[in-house]
């Protein structure tokens, strides 16, 4: 195997990891603040892709598609959290069944609205084509995904680390009851985090729709990946989401390239080993 193979596969893994970061960072924060196992998180990714697709086809604007997808799905998330999930605080099984119920409904509605054919979100001319560095070829769109993930990651880090709202979120992650006790409106923080997480997943869906496509079943396909990222990285940890995304992106890519028959095994088995050594994930504290 040549050096080009390793470079190209590593880059593919990193760029897939970048997409996973968009999907999983929100899930991780939601976990951290609300301890909710949200099985509809993959649906946000898929619905975001579909909404983005429709907007991109109507307006020819990729930026508008990203915005519309993220905002629309953030609103869906707000509705779910406020009217259905909030009353299930602490009931793990109830949350699982409720969110899977929503996931099935979303899946069927998407099939009803957009049909069963796979689509690709049209991407701007600027982002097509490749860059050649030495012997290796890098698609510009994948570089763009990495850039978006870096920007989003930095923005999240700054917001969490340097702002008052971020401090409130971190307090709620550490101990929701104490945070409530010192006057933080935890339900409102939870709602905001849920909306942010849903919106980020949808943004991932629009951007991912540019090279993976949008199709029925994408929701349940990405969901386990998001879970593995969160498990490996640790609940509610932003650095954990970064490390987990990169690790999962690389493992998945090399697994598929080197051991195609065992590719999911090569993804989930290392996760099990990490868990056996560190039950709370790489960066988890709780």
């Amino acid at each position: 195997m040549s050096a080009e193979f390793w470079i190209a596969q590593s880059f593919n893994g990193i760029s897939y990891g970048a997409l996973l970061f968009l999907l999983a960072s929100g899930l991780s924060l939601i976990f951290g603040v609300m301890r909710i196992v949200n099985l509809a998180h993959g649906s946000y990714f898929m619905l975001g892709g579909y909404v983005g697709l429709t907007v991109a086809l109507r307006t020819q604007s990729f930026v508008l598609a990203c915005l519309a997808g993220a905002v629309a799905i953030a609103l869906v998330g707000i509705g779910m959290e406020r009217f259905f999930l909030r009353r299930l605080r602490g009931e793990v099984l109830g949350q699982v069944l409720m969110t899977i119920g929503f996931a099935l409904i979303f899946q069927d509605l998407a099939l009803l609205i957009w049909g069963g054919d796979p689509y690709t979100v049209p991407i701007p001319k600027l982002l097509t084509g490749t860059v050649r560095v030495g012997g290796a070829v890098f698609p510009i769109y994948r570089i763009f995904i990495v850039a978006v993930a870096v920007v989003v990651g930095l923005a999240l880090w700054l917001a969490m680390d340097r702002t008052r709202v971020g401090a409130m979120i971190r307090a709620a992650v550490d101990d929701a009851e104490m945070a409530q006790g010192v006057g933080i409106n935890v339900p409102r923080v939870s709602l905001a985090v849920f909306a942010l997480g849903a919106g980020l997943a949808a943004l991932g869906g629009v951007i991912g729709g540019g090279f993976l496509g949008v199709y029925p079943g994408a929701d349940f396909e990405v969901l386990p990946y998001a879970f593995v990222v969160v498990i490996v990285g640790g609940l509610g940890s932003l650095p954990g989401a970064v490390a987990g995304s990169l690790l999962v992106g690389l493992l998945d890519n090399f697994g598929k390239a080197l051991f195609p028959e065992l590719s999911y095994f090569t993804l989930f088995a290392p996760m099990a080993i990490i868990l056996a050594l560190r039950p709370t994930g790489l960066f988890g504290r709780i």
Partner: protein
Amino acid sequence: MIRRRALLAAGVIAVLALIGPWLPAYPLTVLTQAVIFAILAMSLDVLLGYTGLSSLGHAAYFGVGAYVVAIMTTEHQMGLLACLAAGVALATLTAAVFGLFAIRATGTYFLMITLALGMVIWGLAYRWVSLTKGDNGIAGIPRPTLLGIELIAPVPFYYFCLACAVLAWVLMGLLVISPFGLGLRGIRGSEGRMQALGYNVWLHKYTAFVLSGVFGGFSGTLWAYYNGFVSPNDVQLVTSVETLLMVALGGSGTLIGPALGAGIIVFLRNFVSVYTKRWLLILGGVYIGVILFAPSGLVGALRGRRR
């Protein structure tokens, strides 16, 4: 209380046994399917209802059992007993390995780990094409012969499955009322207290996890014979979650409730999908409705009313 419930269950079993020959072919096959899923739902109830661990990967054992039967019958023409033994054994082994990872965790972590472990089996079913034929699945699994009796026709096969389900129900029923089962209930109530009383909590949970996998695998072996076809769909996350729904719908911690829940879901799935394409929409509504209106399940709701 236990005696009255056992009598009621015996009555239900008698009715199920008597109506077999009188049912038309299609309702009978649906009933057979319900009986098989009843075993699966009861096996999850041992873990969820009695031990308090909600697993999101229960389809793994079901799938391992089903795939073992599929491969052994189509590639090696093995008999029923050998297939059942091998299917259950491999499912047990899977649960024994998974349990080592999963039992360390509690709550949401347990859910996520079992989800990921379940996906390992799905991934193998989907990708290990040389063994499992991948997405195409394995077709052409013949109906079995037991001690010279052919179980090919719907009625004998129905009786075979019913007998298996009754056997599984009796075994699991004995398990949950045994001192071990009471220990599990104690753990569900308060793990710390059981630890302080000197119980080996880890071993109790681990044993329950493995036993739950044993019966899950058992139902999977029957499913392969029933359906004549296995595919990665049998192992996917939705199957695991649907099993959780069966348990929650019927009422967890009652064994008979989850069996009832399995019956309801199987009948809904088969009959509603005849009339409408929007089955998923309805199923999603059922999930949400159960949580909003019957959080302790049908059996729980009935008991609550009686008091």
